[in-house]
């Protein structure tokens, strides 16, 4: 099972990558929205951890593209943001700083539901 972590902050991104590697997931890491779309098209993950404020295509734009794409719209997305009020309506939101226990728990449930 694969998790896609999208965050332009390297420290946060790499820490999350390590967390999910520890938990036994395959992990892809994208530094911005554009790179995230490349990973999404190459091989869909079971869940996307998506930051909102990023250069080269924001998380909001990535979320929008996924929702309008038949192949991607079923992939669960967890919005990981420092400003939950900006999250797209209807999305699953987890504020920063990330509560690791809740995040790991949430991803586990989403991936098992997808599987």
């Amino acid at each position, binding site marked *: 099972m694969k998790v896609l972590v999208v965050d332009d*902050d390297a*420290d*946060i991104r790499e*820490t*999350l990558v*390590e*967390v999910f590697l*520890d938990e036994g997931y395959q992990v892809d890491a994208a530094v911005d929205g554009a790179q995230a779309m490349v990973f999404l098209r190459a091989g869909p993950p079971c869940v996307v951890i998506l930051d909102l*404020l990023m250069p080269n295509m924001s998380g909001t734009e990535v979320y929008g593209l996924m929702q309008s794409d038949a192949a991607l719209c079923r992939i669960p997305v967890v919005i990981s943001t*420092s*400003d939950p*009020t*900006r999250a797209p*309506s209807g999305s699953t939101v987890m504020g*920063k*700083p*990330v*509560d*690791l*226990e809740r995040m790991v728990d949430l991803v586990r449930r989403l991936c098992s539901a997808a599987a």
Partner: protein
Amino acid sequence: VQAEIARGASPSPENADLRAFIMGAPAALCILRGPEHRFEIVNSTYLQLTGGRGTAGMTVREALPEIEGQGFLELLDRVYATGEPFHGRELPAQLAGADGALRTAYFNFTYQPMRDASGAVDGIAIYASEVTEFVEARQILSTTLQREQDLRTAAEESESKFKALFDAMPQLGWFARPDGYIEFYNRGWYEYTGTTPAQMEGWGWRNVHDQELLPTVEARWRRSIETGTAFELTFPLRRHDGVFRWFLTRVNPQHDDQGRIIRWVGINTDVDDQRRSEEQLASLLQSEQQARTEAERTVRFSELFVGILGHDLRNPLSAILTGARLLLRRSEDERITKPISRIVSSSERMARMIDQLLDFTRSRIGGGLPLTPTPTHLAALCRRIAEELEEGVPAPRITVAAKGDDAGTWDPDRLAQVVSNLAGNALQHGGGGPVALSIDGTAPAIVSLTVTSVSALTEETRATMFDPFRRGAASTQVHGSGLGLGLYITEQIVTTHGGSIRVDSSPGRGTSFIVELPRAIAATSEDTSEDQQ
């Protein structure tokens, strides 16, 4: 012949040459004989005047019956009786024409008495010339002249009325010749400027102008004079006391029938007060604009600050916390986990302070705190917060009691902040006693929450506890004290919900914070939260 007549000598009828001369003379001549004025010699020119009447041998009365009563017969009688000649000038006579109708004719004539050898009057010579055309022409001329005179008098009267009105008007005014030389100023001008006609005549007006602006005024005035076009300009004029006031000056040319300029009429209207008001208004508008710009700058700065707090500052803190938590998950070694726990708790405290600063800043920007209204049960929310606050505590001190309907439409995350803040404060400052959360939903429109602890507040604390960044004595005692924003933000959240918060504290009964919330957020607050999202 005239000389002969004038000498009083009767021309001899035997003198054929004289008779021939009389008959052919271009003037009207005739000789009357006897006291009844019988025509003796009548020339053709005379006969033209009478329409052929006056045949030799007829008396005047017989030949010209219409002159009876016109005074001529009486004149002839008098000349005959007295021997005094009579000279008539432009005297009218009513004479019958060929058709019998009377016409008025004017004559210059002389009745000259004629004497016989003894010197007695025995006849009258008449010399006459008709001047009707001349008299009528003069009458027409005279009438015309009179009419012109009347018109001129009327124009002069109208002019003097105009000048009187002009003199009395409240504005300053003057007349100038076509070349711009000012001939007349009204009373208003002299009263305002405190000058005399001698000082002002012609181009003297330049002395009451602002010397810096004068060249512009003069140039414009000269251009109007050259082109014959109206002049309009606003400039200051010096009052008698030396104060300059602004006047709107309009000068219009007056034309005659041929379109030539006969004079210029200038009117100066005092617009100083108006101009001052306009300036004040402009200045007010400018300061209002500055204030708005300042306010906009503050809002922009606040928004920038929110961005920095919310993203730039929180992201590295997130990295620290997430990293530290990852380490805690990986290690069982207390030598590692204890210091990392301190990193975690300090980072969490810092994250809370950033959240508070963010809330504080947002509460100060236009729309206030953004809310996400959601159906919420207040009692359930209070129980969850109580559990979180006392997680793992052996002897919990918080009790939650509810009566009535605890449901409403509020922002549950924000209300959680309120409950957490009030209950947390009560635990910390409540002197170690019990903390009671009681929810009252028995009223239809309002749900209240009362948080009660046993210890009373000092006056000093009560006075300042809702102030932001308060640094009271009480807050310094608190372990891990924050920014002093907790109660301020709590109050902001409650009021943004359309509710109220108050405190009731006395040494006997302890301290109660009472929060009252309307069951649904007012529409404007919802709109605000929509906008913010």
